[in-house]
């Protein structure tokens, strides 16, 4: 990829302007929320204490950013060289994704300005504490991985830049990233270990944290694939089919592992009967597994499909949709157990903030990709 094509790229296209408008709308609502409190902007209540922001912006968002550690694992630990070309982009997406997730947490906390408390008032018996600590350190790690590219562009602090780009430092950061990701990706599921009486048995298991980790790997790979495809579109360069094919194969294998673990777990706990229950929960489960796991797994196991861009886009979006449905099911079915039949629908403010934050993420991604050596220098390696 040559730098010229990127800098020639027209920045303020129509789409970019829409992104900007949505981001600004979200920021205005965020300020409103900080001034007037959660009750005024959200539809949260005592029976649905966690809504769209936690379930989508945070829990789903973090899972979708799992591409960061899986790709760095492939490129730096397993030594599959071809993935080095997308390692930077994947790390960048993860960094932006985590910034958005942290913003989501900040907004959703009743006392946002106490967000630093867990770092000083430790409570190691809490899964939430573990998540906060892991996410804080991991976001720092991602920042350190991102920093050299920024320093290179700004042409300052070359010493620090060279230090951070040392092979040993990169490897330490990568290994730290993988370990921290295991810690919080699984613990996001571990949160629901405390809901044995609320969550439906098709989702509740003492293995739920491992299932969250495995499904995050699937969706993380899908997210990276989608991003690679759209990145090529945006920069008007040919698709990197070699990489996409490998990612698709990885996704298919990851889905198989996830599927097997989930079903063996259900079988061991004698919970397969609930699949045929005919309730809303069983229907949701069947949709989640068939459309979000099995179908993309089968499509991506066919080599011709792995080389076809439309098939890739379709099946990766199915994986992402399946993960989204899974996280929604877990959060909202848990809350269904909080008595009452009151139905939660997010308020328009919650939806705008969510869409606006995603837009802000894409906008940041675009600025950074155009201005920093994310794609071009990787070709040199």
């Amino acid at each position, binding site marked *: 990829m040559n730098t010229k094509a990127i800098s020639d790229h027209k920045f303020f296209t129509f789409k970019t302007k829409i992104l900007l408008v949505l981001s600004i709308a979200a920021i205005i609502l965020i300020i409103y929320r*900080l*001034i*007037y*409190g*959660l*009750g*005024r902007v959200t539809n*949260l209540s*005592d029976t649905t*204490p*966690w809504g769209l922001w936690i379930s989508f912006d945070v829990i789903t968002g973090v899972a979708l950013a799992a591409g960061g550690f899986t790709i760095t*694992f492939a490129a730096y*630990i*397993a*030594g599959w060289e071809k993935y080095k070309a997308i390692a930077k982009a994947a790390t960048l997406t993860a960094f932006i994704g985590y910034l958005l997730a942290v913003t989501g947490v900040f907004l*959703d*906390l*009743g*006392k*946002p300005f*106490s*967000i630093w*408390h*867990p770092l000083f*008032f*430790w*409570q*190691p*018996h*809490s*899964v*939430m*504490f*573990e*998540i*906060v600590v892991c996410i804080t350190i991991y976001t720092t790690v991602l920042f350190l991985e991102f920093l050299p590219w920024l320093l290179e562009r700004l042409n300052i602090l070359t010493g620090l830049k060279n230090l951070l780009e040392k092979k040993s430092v990169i*490897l330490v950061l990568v*290994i730290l990233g*993988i*370990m921290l990701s*295991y*810690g919080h990706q*699984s*613990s996001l599921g*571990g*949160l*629901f*270990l*405390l*809901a*044995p*009486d*609320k969550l439906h048995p098709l989702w509740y298991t*003492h*293995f739920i*944290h491992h299932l969250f980790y495995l499904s995050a790997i699937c969706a993380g790979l899908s997210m990276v694939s989608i991003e690679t495809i759209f990145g090529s579109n945006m920069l008007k360069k040919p698709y990197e089919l070699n990489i996409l094919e490998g990612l698709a194969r990885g996704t298919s294998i990851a889905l198989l592992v996830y599927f097997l673990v989930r079903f063996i777990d259900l079988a061991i706990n004698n919970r397969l009967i609930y699949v045929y229950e005919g309730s809303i929960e069983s229907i949701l489960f069947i949709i989640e597994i068939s459309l979000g796991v099995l179908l993309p797994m089968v499509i991506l196991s066919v080599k011709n499909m792995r080389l076809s861009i439309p098939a890739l886009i379709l099946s990766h979006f199915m994986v992402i949709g399946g993960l989204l449905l899974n996280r929604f099911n877990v959060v909202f079915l*848990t*809350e269904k157990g*909080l*008595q009452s039949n009151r139905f939660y629908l997010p308020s328009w403010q919650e939806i705008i903030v969510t869409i606006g934050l995603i837009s802000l993420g894409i906008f940041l991604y675009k600025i950074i990709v155009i201005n920093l050596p994310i794609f071009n220098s990787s070709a040199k390696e």
Partner: protein
Amino acid sequence: MANGVLVDITKCIGCRSCQIACKAWHSLDASYNLMNGNLTMPKELNDNNYTLIEFKENKTSNRAWKFIKKQCFHCKEPACASACPVGALRKMKNSSVIYDQWLCIGCRYCMIACPFNIPKYEWNTTNPWIRKCDFCDDRIDDGLEPACVKACPMKVMYFGDYKNIVKEAKRRIKNNPDKYINYIYGEKEAGGTSWIYISDKPFEELGFKMNIPKKSYPLITWKNSLSKILWEEAGLLAILGSLLYLRTRKDKKGDKN
């Protein structure tokens, strides 16, 4: 001293003195609700109501009108306290589970974790607190009984040493086997609660949650996830390290050839 309260549902007449006493002691505002066919008032526990009497009309088998005292159960090993990332909810020596608004960050995980759905939230302020029954922590420390227990004209609630209240519950059931259901609600639920109930009608008919596992909640997360995580991380580090070592060694060999 481990305190506890035995609630004998058969004795309650639904006068709501306990609700008033609770409001008075905690300086909570009055709640205004319209009548709508159900005499439970206010309708539910919320940030302004730590306790209430639920009026339960049993319309199916053997008709009865029952009045159920609702408030925090003060679990022996509270799920909420183990869920809180900053330790804002704590189990005290006097058995109360109390809340520290200065530590709280407002994540509301306690609301998800509590098997009895007790913690409530102040949704409409900019500096919201979790609100729940505090077992009149301050009164107990001064050797007094909780406000609701003190106010009750029918002696529905028996406050005392936990061992004694369990003994008393068993004694009452044993002496009146025809009257009471042979079950102490809260003796084993969620690993045992400091407030326990006995009743003359099946608990499921009175709206008590019967699917609560009879084991300590904090132990579920501790055993399955948190206690193992350091070992898992160490294992992961070993795997990653050895992978990396094997690969670089292979690469170096390849270079020599």
